[in-house]
């Protein structure tokens, strides 16, 4: 459905995208995961024909994004990172406008509008001015709008940024439901790790390059099993002892020992017995995409703390 070959995009001296290759299959939920500024939005804007790549080739539903921009635009729906509704119009008017500029025939428009509005549970608010909507409602309305013209690919740029967990879950329910019912291809970007796990395949992007591309399960298996974190009265001694009795390389991070083992539960008891110094705390967890990112880049991808820009954007979104 989407073919991307060796795309570069430079702004002056800044290389936002540096040679990206990937293919998205029809009916797939494909995610771009990476920290802010990794080049996710730039890539979406290229695929949406909003900006032209500096070099490389990209096509969508068989249309070249540079030379066939209008055809590409009629096959896609987009939910931008920043709100793009007309806040002085009602929900219904926003959709009506969208249907008109996307060439949805008048006879179909009424039915489609009611379908999508019911889907995002905004039917009761259809005649209210968008200005009075909450951030989550606006987002849902934008998703409804993106679907109105039956696009073959739906782009979601940080679809749940700045929303509360409850709304995030609801939006994800819609997205999964949507794929099942409409067999639509979904391309999304996110920097929330837990959100990325909903995708069929994920491309982890950092500094304008794809550093890994696979299913969430396979990506996580790169970490090598379960993750055990423990802290002891003397970490150095403990690490030595773990190495001696189990021949496992343990790492010290933030004054905690982190190690990966294939079978965490079975290993815990053995581990406790092999350490002579006292253990203050110990925990076992399944690997997350956070661990994958850490492993691939050596850096953490702040998940919990919002960047200053994000919280500002979230603030703006709530305010408006």
């Amino acid at each position, binding site marked *: 459905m989407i073919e991307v070959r060796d795309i570069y995009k430079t702004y002056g001296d800044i290389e936002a995208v540096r040679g990206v290759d990937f293919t998205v299959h029809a009916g797939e939920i494909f995610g771009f995961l990476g920290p802010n500024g990794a080049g996710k939005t730039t890539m979406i804007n290229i695929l*949406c024909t909003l900006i032209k790549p500096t070099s490389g080739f990209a096509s969508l539903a068989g249309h070249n994004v540079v030379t066939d921009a209008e055809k590409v635009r009629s096959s896609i729906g987009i939910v931008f990172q920043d709100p793009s509704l007309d806040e002085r119009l009602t929900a219904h008017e926003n959709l009506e406008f969208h249907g*008109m500029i996307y060439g949805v025939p008048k006879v179909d428009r009424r039915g489609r509008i009611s379908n999508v509005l019911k889907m995002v549970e905004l039917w009761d608010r259809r005649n209210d001015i968008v200005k009075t909507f909450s951030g989550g409602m606006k987002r849902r309305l934008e998703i409804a709008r993106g679907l109105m013209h039956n696009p073959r690919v739906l782009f979601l740029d940080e679809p749940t940024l700045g929303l509360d967990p409850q709304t995030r879950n609801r939006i994800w329910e819609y997205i999964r439901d949507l794929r099942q019912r409409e067999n639509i291809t979904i391309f999304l970007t996110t920097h929330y790790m837990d959100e990325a796990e909903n995708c069929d395949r994920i491309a982890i992007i950092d500094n304008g390059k794809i550093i890994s591309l696979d299913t969430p399960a396979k990506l996580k298996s790169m970490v090598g099993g379960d993750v055990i974190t423990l802290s002891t009265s003397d970490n150095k001694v403990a690490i030595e002892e773990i190495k001696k009795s189990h021949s496992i390389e343990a790492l010290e991070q933030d004054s905690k020992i982190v190690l990966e083992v294939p079978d965490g539960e079975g290993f815990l008891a053995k581990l406790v017995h092999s350490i002579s110094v006292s253990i203050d705390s110990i925990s076992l967890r399944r690997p997350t995409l956070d661990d994958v990112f850490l492993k691939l880049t050596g850096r953490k991808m702040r998940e919990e703390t919002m960047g200053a820009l994000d919280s500002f954007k979230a603030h703006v979104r709530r305010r408006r």
Partner: protein
Amino acid sequence: MNNLRAIYSIWLRDLIRYRRDKYRLISSLAQPALFLFVFGNGLARGLAIDIQRTGGGSESYVSFIFPGIIGMTLLFTSVFTAVSIVWDREFGFLKEVMVAPISRWSIAVGKALGGSTVALIQGVIVLLLAPFLGLQLSFLTLFALIPLMYLISISLTSMGIVIAVKMETMEGFQMVLNFLVMPIFVLSGAMFPLSNLPGWLHFLTRINPLSYGVDALRGLMLGPSVAEFSLGFDVAILSVFAVIMMFFAVFLFNRS
């Protein structure tokens, strides 16, 4: 076909927004009313101004400025509506339009038609004040005034779009207001006759599109003897200006 529908939807959106914004309606009518009654009565009585007709006889000041006030209304409404593009950009809505499968030129044309229609409506509302000023307009005059007002509006809206596309932020609007819109108004002959001005000022009024608009409105409403040029000449100048501005607006939209 798609582009025609796009033009229509962009036009319709501007009208819906206009209808909904009662504050804007009231405030944009308050200004012409203020000018008419305060200047028209206060200034005229205080300074005892009467305007000489070329063929002899005179015209009261208030009826002299009435066509000018309509020109002012068209100017301000046109430019304001066009500049809302900058708001659309700031609030993200422009992106929604830009990624739609429609040609960029249709966005510019839709916006020009929308802004000029809103301006025309405002102008017509001000025109309704005519009987209160003792001005009697024949049906034929009214019939001719509407297309003329629309021509003035579309040329000014297109000019506004050209400015809006070039303007990065809303802060720039104050600049546009002070250095373009106000001079266009003041130097259009809306408030005083343009004859007997010093050379440099005379030159500025000559390159001002609204001068020809106000002159044409005045000729139609008060009779050709109050106008400086023939109606045909005014309309020709306005049409040329409108085409040039429209062309520029479309060109800039295509590039962005």
